[in-house]
């Protein structure tokens, strides 16, 4: 096993002062919604943590998650985190390729069996292993093999967390999420398409600093610190929703005024994520701020939830055909019912026997 420099050494090498490091720990503590008192503990934990081995598996994915994490912002401290771990296997980022790359994965697994962290992006095809293979090994086999010795798994991106776009109807590859295959290891889901970079790095940092048990997750395995509230509740456009002011198109007056995008299909009300507060690109913006409705990408099946540009309150099924059928069926039933009623009445009329006043008493 090679010498793994401790974090402070690395920081020095990267020109980060001790003050800068402590500030980072405070920021991280706040990002994780942990009590400020924990900041020194995080600093201590990170300082004393050895660089754990990380194996990053990419399956049916678009590399967007990787692209995103490399844009994790400053002061290149997340970059530092990359160095704080020993990223032993990652197609896109590692220098090695071919056999050498696969050897690196196997070596890391052997050397750190039971202790390494597996990060997965992309979904796993179950229909036919050939749909997605790496070095002749199917995604399914590679995941099972790699997961066996893992301390924990982090599923980044909605594909790994919930199946994502490959899983979208009609799911031609039979794509599933990591949690559909691995059931005996702790799995943390960090969904998003892609996830917010600082969310990925923060969760990894918390894992390193405070351990798996410190990460509280919701029923979908998402860390509550980042997936506890809806975008709608934290959206800066929320006052417009409350006032009933909506953009009706992408270039209308409402859009220019920055009104609520609900009617353009915004999924903010049903989407849990910190997009509206943490934002992207060093807190610069997020989709709604850029004028586009939220797609709901941190939620399972977001691709199939009724169309991106259909308002949440509108039906998403085949109601038009059903409605037309109902019109025809209702008309037929109504005419049939009316005809039956007329027949009842006609029968009564023909059964009528004229009476005179002497016919109105009962025989007693």
């Amino acid at each position, binding site marked *: 096993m090679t010498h793994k420099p401790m974090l402070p050494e690395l920081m020095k090498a990267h020109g980060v002062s001790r003050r800068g490091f402590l500030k980072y720990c405070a920021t991280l503590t706040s990002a994780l919604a942990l009590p400020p008192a924990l900041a020194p503990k995080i600093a201590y934990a990170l300082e004393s943590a050895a660089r754990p081995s990380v194996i990053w598996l990419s399956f049916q994915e678009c590399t967007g998650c990787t692209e995103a994490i490399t844009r994790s912002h400053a002061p290149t401290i997340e970059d530092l985190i990359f160095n704080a771990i020993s990223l032993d296997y990652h197609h896109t980022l590692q220098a090695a390729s071919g056999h050498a790359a696969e050897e690196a994965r196997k070596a890391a697994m052997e050397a750190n069996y039971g202790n390494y962290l597996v990060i997965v992006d992309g979904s796993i095809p179950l229909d036919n292993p050939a749909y997605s293979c790496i070095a002749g090994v199917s995604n399914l086999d590679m995941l099972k093999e790699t997961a066996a010795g893992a301390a924990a798994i982090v599923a980044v991106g909605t594909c790994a967390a919930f199946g994502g776009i490959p899983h979208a109807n009609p799911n031609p590859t039979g794509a599933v999420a990591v949690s559909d295959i691995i059931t005996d290891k702790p799995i943390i889901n960090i969904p998003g398409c892609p996830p917010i970079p600082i969310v990925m790095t923060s969760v990894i940092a918390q894992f390193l600093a405070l351990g798996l048990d410190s990460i509280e997750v919701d029923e979908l395995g998402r860390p509550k610190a980042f997936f506890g509230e809806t975008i709608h509740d934290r959206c800066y456009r929320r006052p417009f929703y409350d006032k*009933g002011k909506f953009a009706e198109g992408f270039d209308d007056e409402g859009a220019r005024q920055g009104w609520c995008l609900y009617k353009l299909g915004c999924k903010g009300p049903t989407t849990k994520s910190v997009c509206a507060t943490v934002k992207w690109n060093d807190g610069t913006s997020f989709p709604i701020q850029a004028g586009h409705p939220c797609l709901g990408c941190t939620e399972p099946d977001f691709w199939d939830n009724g169309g991106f540009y259909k308002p949440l309150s509108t039906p998403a099924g085949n*109601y038009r055909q059903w409605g037309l059928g109902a019109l025809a069926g209702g008309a037929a039933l109504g005419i049939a019912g009316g005809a039956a009623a007329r027949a009842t009445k006609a029968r009564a009329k023909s059964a009528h026997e004229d009476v005179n006043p002497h016919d109105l008493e009962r025989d007693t």
Partner: protein
Amino acid sequence: MNNPYFDLLMWARTTGFDIALTILIAGLLLRVLEIAVLGRKRDLAAPKGNPVAQGFRTVFTRSVPRKGQLKVAPVTYVGGYVFHLGFAIAFLFLGAHIALIDDLIGIQWPEANKALIETAAALAVVAGIALGWTRIANPVRRALTGFDDWLVLALSLLPLVTGYIAVNRLFGADQTLWMALHILSAEALMVAFPFTKLTHAVTFMMARYYNGSIQGRKGAES
């Protein structure tokens, strides 16, 4: 792994809505056509007034209580108005609902703000409770009240309550879950429509027309 709340919401927006809309449309069409097809005999008495004009007029004029009536049953009248108007405002002027109507039939109108919608909804709920109370307290209403009346009252109030909870996340309600419950409660109302007295929302026009035309032929008020 999937989000059961979201699945519920999507069921409400797809299959649930399809079923509810189908039952609503087919059921109401059945009820209305059944009446229309049954028909009535032509009235041969020489008209003194204009039965058709008065029939149509009565559809509207009967919305206003006759002089003196308000004070004999204030809760029923005021409660009735507040409930109907409150429900109508909450239903017709919330942006999300206008988006729904726009999607269904392609027409839309300006939205009202949250304060107005929520006031209307809250007043409608209070009115509904008051109307329910008189169904217990008033002997006439108690005698007339059956299961149908309680069911309809409950089904009418549920969308208002669930909608309010969903938007304001009362009691830490999960928005997705409560939005789903809200839509489902509205769908329950739609399904109940043709089978209960809720049908009056459509047939009242026929009833008022007939009433007005019968009276109008005689030149009598209606």
